[in-house]
Structure formats: structure tokens, C-alpha cells
């Protein structure tokens, strides 16, 4: 291990260093602006350094900075950047200090990035825990009743699920003698292996990962945490934390060749279908926007798993594209929620949005665009994403799953439309919508997201090409 080996890790190191600097900064002088700018700069620099990563990509057996990882890290960094921007507006003028928030944000971003680059269960586990532990604090950050409740729930359940995950890894390790993904497949094919234990290990890993991804039946925490957490953190939970985990899952299951285990395939399929139905049905008549988005994210992960299950050339591209679209959409939707949230509470009741089109037409349009994207309506990235997923599913002849997806899309549509209708209805009496002026940065971010959303919806070719290039290895 030489210094040269560390070169590919520069992006991750930039993030880590930024967080440490902010922490040190607190010791001397607290400055919102400084820490905020440093955070943004750190993420930006890390993002830029991604393009400089060359040479040996495998850094010890723990991490690999291949194109796939770089792409996902880029995605995670971009999302964190947006969240950081949104939260600076959100936390402005609150009692809480903001500096710790940035530290935790950077750390969790780091954790997620580590996940995307992991090739080893150790890095997987530690990345996951960095992410989780930071999230515990982030979720409870403003320390009001809902925050705390959400934090406690997330902590208890995440820790329990980590235990499941660990136990699963232990079983896998015990059976194969390695924790490296790439070596695990050869360990698996060794003689005299206890296949039952192996599968149990897989199942337990799936349980742990499934919890993080918030797929049914490990989804129950999602709405509560989404509702309880501050809006930008919710956006973070919904995007960055899931993105990293999904990237890892994809890498892992491709390397161990999940398709060799039909029963494992069946379990994931079950999870996919259950997630779609649970998410959509739970959201059906829900009255809290954050909870609706939570349930919807459950369903979306279910859709994603369909593509995940598909084999063939399309799998990685489809999953990645969908994730990008999902990131943009989710960030946009929570961005709107963040923008409208007051100091007292987040703008999360559906009534808060009644008649939004009247007094904030642009915001309403952006929100509608996001919702349409979630629903997979053309002109939005969500459409191409859904198309890709169905394509991947159809390409592997997973017809049953595709049909389930189709049915669920229709159910999902119902509640997206419900919100959209409210947006354009006669204005109601809600204090939330009376927020005087919108912060500039947030607005810019939202506009940017919307433009991206539409651009990807109309001309996705460049991104598709890029994803294809980046993920060619798989």
C-alpha cells in the first residue's frame, strides 16, 4: 500500500477532510457561512476530483474506484450538494447550530460514497454505519418531538437491521472464508458447502439492505422517519442513503451472480412486488405529503428491483438511469416541501398545498413536474426511467413482475393526481402557503432540477450513453 494507491481515494478524502475542518472550525469560531461554503466547496471539489481518478482503481481489497463507483459517487455528491443548499435555507434562523449538520451531512455522504465503492463486506459495513450513525443525528437534528421520535425509531430499527446484516455476513463469511465480493463467488462454488447457510446469509444480508432501501416488508419505518425528519434530511434519506446502498447491492449481486440462485431471485421478486403494493396502497389516501412521498419511494424501490432482477445488458443502465431520475425527482419534490416549510412545522399536509398554483404558480408547476415524473409521465425523466425499467423487465421476460409494475403504476397515479389536483384547486386557508418570499438559492436549485428533469425526459441520450460507458464493466 503506497501513497500512489491512495490517489483514487482523493474524492473521499476531500469529503472527510472537509468535515474535519468544519469540526475544528467549531472549536474556534462558529460561522454558518464558513461551514456552509466549506461544505459546498468540499462536495464540489470532491466532485471535480472524481474526473481525475485514474490508475489503479482497486484500493486494498476494500474499495474500488471504478467508473461505476465514480458515477454513483458523483450522483451522491450532486444530491448532497442540493441537500446542502436546501438545508442552508431550511435551517436559517432556527435555534439549532448548523455546523454540526454540515459535518454529519458530509460524513453521511462519505458513508454513502464508500458504499458505492465497496468491494468488501468490511467497507460495506463501515460505510453503512457511517451513513446510519450520521443519519440518526441528522434525522433528530432540530430536536422537536417529531424529530426525536423519528430519530429513535430509525436508530433502533437501523441498529437491529444492522445486526441482521452482520449476522448474515458472518454466515457468508463462515461458509466461504472470505468477505471480498470477488472472491466470494469462488468460495461459493467450493466443494462441501452448506448451501442452506449460504442462502440464509444472503437472506439476512437482504434483510439488512432491504431495511436501508425501505422495501417491504422492511419498510415500516419509512413514513415515520420521512415525516419526522427535517425536510432536507428526508430528501437526503430518500436519495443519498438509498443510492449508495443500491449501488452496492447491484455490485454485490452481480459479482456473486445472483441469477445462480433461483430462490434468492424469488425472494427479491417477492420483495419487489410487496414493496410496490405496500407503497402504493399505503399512499393511496394518505394526507401527509411527506408520508405520501415515503410510501411512493417504497413503491419506486420496488420498481427498481424489477430492473435489478432483470439480467442482460440493460439491467445496470436501467437501474442507474432510474436512480438518476428518481434522485432528481425526489430532491425536487422535497425541495418544494422544504421551500414551503415554515419554522413551526414542515409543509407536509396536503391541505397546505391547496391552490398553490394560484399564488405560487412556478412552484406548483415544478411540484407537478416532479409528481408527474414520479408517476412516469412523458416529458419527464421519470418516464424514461420507467420505460427503461419495463424494458429491462421485458427484456428478461419477467412478465409477471412487469404486469405488477404496470398495475402499481396505475394505483400510484391515483395519489399523485390527488396532490396535483389539490395544487390547482381553489386556495384553502393554510398558514404555510403564506410564506412571504422564497429563498433564491433554493429556487435556483429547483429550477435547475426541473430543467434537468425535462431535459432527461426529452433527450436522455447523453446520459444513457454516459451511464452505458461508465457501467460497461458489468
Amino acid at each position, binding site marked *: 500500500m503506497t501513497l500512489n494507491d491512495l490517489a483514487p481515494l482523493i474524492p473521499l478524502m476531500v469529503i472527510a477532510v472537509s468535515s474535519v475542518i468544519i469540526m475544528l472550525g467549531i472549536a474556534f469560531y462558529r460561522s454558518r457561512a464558513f461551514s456552509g461554503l466549506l461544505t459546498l466547496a468540499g462536495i464540489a471539489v470532491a466532485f471535480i476530483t472524481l474526473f481525475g481518478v485514474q490508475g489503479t482503481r482497486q484500493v486494498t481489497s476494500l474499495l474500488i474506484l471504478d467508473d461505476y463507483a465514480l458515477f454513483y459517487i458523483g450522483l451522491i455528491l450532486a444530491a448532497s450538494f442540493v441537500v446542502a443548499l436546501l438545508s442552508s435555507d431550511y435551517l436559517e434562523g432556527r435555534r439549532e447550530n448548523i455546523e454540526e449538520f454540515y459535518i454529519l451531512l458530509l460524513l453521511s455522504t462519505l458513508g454513502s460514497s464508500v458504499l458505492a465503492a465497496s468491494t468488501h463486506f468490511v467497507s460495506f459495513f463501515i460505510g453503512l454505519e457511517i451513513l446510519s450513525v450520521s443519519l440518526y443525528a441528522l434525522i433528530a437534528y432540530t430536536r422537536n418531538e417529531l424529530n426525536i421520535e423519528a430519530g429513535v425509531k430509525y436508530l433502533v430499527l437501523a441498529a437491529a437491521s444492522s445486526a441482521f446484516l452482520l449476522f448474515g455476513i458472518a454466515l457468508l463469511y463462515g461458509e466461504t472464508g472470505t468477505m471480498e465480493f470477488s472472491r466470494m463467488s469462488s468460495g461459493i462454488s467450493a466443494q462441501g458447502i452448506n448451501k442452506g447457510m449460504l442462502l440464509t446469509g444472503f437472506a439476512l444480508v437482504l434483510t439488512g439492505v432491504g431495511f436501508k432501501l425501505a422495501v417491504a416488508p422492511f419498510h415500516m419505518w419509512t413514513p415515520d422517519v420521512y415525516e419526522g425528519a427535517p425536510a432536507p434530511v428526508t430528501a437526503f434519506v430518500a436519495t443519498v442513503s438509498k443510492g449508495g446502498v443500491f449501488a452496492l447491492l447491484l455490485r454485490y449481486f452481480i459479482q456473486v451472480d445472483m441469477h445462480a440462485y433461483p430462490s434468492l431471485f424469488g425472494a427479491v421478486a417477492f420483495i419487489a412486488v410487496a414493496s410496490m403494493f405496500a407503497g402504493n396502497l399505503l399512499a393511496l389516501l394518505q394526507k401527509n405529503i411527506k408520508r405520501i412521498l415515503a410510501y411512493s419511494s417504497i413503491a419506486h424501490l420496488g420498481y427498481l428491483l424489477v430492473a435489478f432482477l432483470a439480467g442482460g445488458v440493460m439491467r445496470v443502465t436501467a437501474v442507474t438511469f432510474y436512480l438518476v431520475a428518481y434522485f432528481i425527482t425526489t430532491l425536487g419534490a422535497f425541495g418544494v416541501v422544504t421551500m414551503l416549510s415554515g419554522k413551526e412545522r414542515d409543509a407536509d399536509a396536503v391541505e397546505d398545498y391547496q391552490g398553490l398554483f394560484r399564488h405560487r404558480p412556478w412552484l406548483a408547476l415544478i411540484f407537478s413536474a416532479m409528481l408527474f415524473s414520479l408517476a412516469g409521465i412523458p416529458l419527464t425523466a421519470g418516464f424514461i426511467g420507467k420505460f427503461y425499467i419495463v424494458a429491462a423487465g421485458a427484456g428478461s421476460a419477467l412478465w409477471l413482475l412487469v404486469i405488477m409494475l*404496470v398495475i402499481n403504476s396505475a394505483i400510484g397515479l391515483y395519489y399523485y*393526481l390527488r396532490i396535483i389536483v389539490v395544487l*390547482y384547486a381553489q386556495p384553502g386557508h393554510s398558514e404555510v402557503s403564506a410564506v412571504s418570499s422564497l429563498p433564491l438559492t433554493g429556487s435556483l436549485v429547483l429550477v435547475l432540477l426541473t430543467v434537468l428533469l425535462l431535459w432527461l425526459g426529452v433527450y436522455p*441520450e447523453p446520459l*444513457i450513453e454516459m451511464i452505458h460507458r461508465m457501467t460497461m464493466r458489468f
Partner: protein
Amino acid sequence: MILIWLILIPLMGGLLAWLFSRGNDRLPRWISLIALIIDFILVLLLWMQYPERAGLTNRSWLVDINLEWIPRLGISFHLALDGLSLLLVMLTSFLGIMSVAASWTEIKERVGFFHFNLMWSLAGITGVFLSLDLFLFYFFWELMLVPMYFLIALWGHENRISAAVKFFLFTQLSGLLMLAAILGLYFVHARGTGIYTFDYTQLLGTTMGSTEGMLLMLGFLIAFVVKLPAVPFHTWLPDAHTEAPTAGSIILAGLLLKTGAYGLLRFAVPLFPHAALDFTPVAMALAVIGILYGAVLAFGQTDLKRLVAYTSVSHMGFVLLGIFAWNELALQGAVIQIICHGISTGALFIIVGALQERIHTRDMERMGGLWTSAPRMGGVGLLFGLASLGLPGLGNFVGEFLVLIGAYTVSIPMTAIAATGLVFATVYSLWMIQRTFFGPREVYLKVPDLNMREMTVMAFMVAVIVWIGLYPQPVINTAKGALNALQKNAGAMTSFGKISYPVSTGADRDTK
């Protein structure tokens, strides 16, 4: 390029209408009207150049434009226009103009946004009629729904929300099934040829297993018959039509339903001729059930708009019948029925809208005797009521009769039962006229008659319906090349829709 303009003009018109709507309600209306008129003139010019108009050639595509879009997936921006598309695009811009004119005074709120939605919906529909890439087709197919949804949900009547949602859910769900089927076809085609493409022209003639073909065909078919709509997928229609504002109803009935028919004609049958052939008995049965059931339902209604809405179910049954009979007569009949139903039902919706604007109800129990004060409205209403019952001399008759003739070769009993639909059509049409315009004048003493604007709109529609009724040949010639090509595509492998005249040929020889 002109094809792109056909779609772009309404898109831009809609945007402009919206942008210039601040504090000005007139400007959006004029912008939309002018944009649509330009669109219409463009199509007319195309038509003038079109040699098939006079039945001269049998060339299939008049204009064809094929741009790269997402080459990685074999998706291209492929638009093309043949006689069938031409007619439907023409209908689109024509009804677009009519719907803008018809809602001139009806819409008072958010006029700009209204026109934006209207125009975008029209653009989407135009796109559907022009796309030759299945992905692009699906893209437009979905795209046209959103503005339509807004039209219903924002400017509709009492139960607009649930109607809009129902409409959207039905069409979306079926659309997604179609997407799955499109992808299935894509992969089946790739499996056979190694070429991944969504291009219609290349996908034609894909070889596939029979079960496979049937399932894929059903995916397409469901999307199209939901739109059409055929029983038992029709229940979104009455709600949506009834609750939509007048312009929305016109576009729904006049154009949106037609996309279903167009899809069947262009895609479902030619792409899967064998499966379609196997499915013919079921499809025709559905058509016949639709004809009768729609008529019975129409008769039972007390809401005037709902009644008109149900008549669509009945009328579109003829289209379905014609398409699945798949011979030249039936197809021509279906095309004419598509156009004439668009116009006659559109006109009826305009009348209902005008009535509602005046007396604020659609309940026929509260109408009656309107002829006295509004004879012009009565006269026009009567005319379109008659068109809807299939009176010869008006366009719908030509369509229905041709369909019946065409269907006769395929199934005599079906034809006979479908023909009884004409009787039921008489029942509900006359009932409608009777309840609204005739009878004692009970409630409304003075109802203003149709004004200049409305009469102008009506005059155009009357002119077209009578013209098609008495001289449909230009329409037939225009569609001919396209229909022949479709038949060739579908019929190359099957015995689909061959008409045989058991006697005539012999008799001809004798007489000559």
C-alpha cells in the same frame, strides 16, 4: 420538417397563449385560434399536394422524417404522414379550431392555462397520429393525456376530479400494458433479427410464436379499446365526457377516442396479423356488444351530456367492427365513421355546452320546448341527432353502412345484430331531441339562441358532415393508399379480410 411544425405550432401556440395571459383573457384565445388555423392551413396545403386525394397513386407515405433520438435503444424521432394520418391530423386541427371557438365565452378562469392545456393536448394527439416509432408513439400517447386531465380536472363540472382521475387511470393503466407489449415486440424482433429498434416499418412482419403474438397483440389492443372505448372498458368515458368542459368533451370524443381506433388500424392489426385474425370473433363480439349496450345506456340517461357520451360507446363499436372486419369497405367505413363521429359528437357537445351556459343544467328532466326560443339550436341539434342515428345523406351513415357491408363478409350474424344498433340509435337520438327541444315549454321561458360565433362553428360542422354524407370520395381516396398499405402489411401472411363475391364475378362476365 412540416410534420414537426404540425406538432410544434400548437405547442408554441399553447406556450404563448399562457405567457400572454396575464390580465388578458382575449389574447390567449386569439393566439390559440390563429395557431390552430395556421396548423389547419398547413394540413390543407399538404392535402392539396397529396396525389391520393384524387385517387391517383397508391404510394403510402407522403412525408417522412426520421431523426436520431436515442440510438442506443433503437429509438428514433420518426414521423410520417400517409392518407390516414393526414385525415386524422386534419380532423385534429379542425376540431381544435372548433373547440377554441366553442369555449370562447365558457372559460372565464385561467384562460391562458386552459388554452395551454388545450393546445398541448392537440399537439400530443397530432403526434400520436404521426409517429412511426413505437416509443415516440407511446410518448405522445401519454403526453396527450396530461393536459386533457387538467382540462377536465380544472375546468370541468361538479364531479370533475373523480372523473378526471378515472379517465387518467384507465388510460394510463392500459397505456402501460401497451408499453409492455411494445417492449415485448422490441425484444421479440431483436431475438429474431438481432436488431433493436422501435421503428414501425422495421417491426412490421416480425415473426413470433402464436401465443406470444396473441399476448403482445392483447397488450396493444387493451390500450386501444380502452381509448376507443369498447365494453367493458368504457366506464371512464361517460364520466370524463360529462364532467369535461365543452372543449374537453369535443377533444375527448372527437379526437382522443380516435387515437384508439388509429392505434388499432396502424399498430394492433398490422403488427400482429395472425393474432388479430384469431381474435377477430372476440373483437367483433365486443364491438357489437358495445353498439347495443352503449345505446341502451344512452337511452337510460337523464343527463344530456352523459347521453351523448354513451352514444360514443355505441358509435365507436362500429369502428371496432369495421377495423376487425379488415377489408377495404369496412376500413373505409371505419375511417369515415371516425371522422364523422368526431364531428357529429363534437357538435352535439358544443350544443350541450351552449345549453349549459344558458340554462345551467344538463338535466333533461328540466329541459323541453327549447325549440320555441332557440330554433337555430334546435335545428342544428336535430341535424346532429339525426347524424348520430345514421341518417343517409349525413356522414355517419356512410361510415356505418360501409362498416356493415364490410363486416358482412366476416360474420353475418354480427352484422345483423350490429345493424339493430341503428334502431337503438334512433331511439336514443329521438328521445334526446324530444326531451330537449320539443315538448311543452315548462321551465325556461327565454333562452337565447345560438349567436353568430356559435352558428359559424356549427355551419362548418354541418357543411363537413353533409359533404361527407353526399360526397365522401375525397376522404375515401385520401385514405385509400394508406389503407391498402395497411392491408398489405397485415394481409401478406394471412387471409385476413379478403372479400369474395360468390356470384358477382360470374354475373359480371355474363353481362359484359
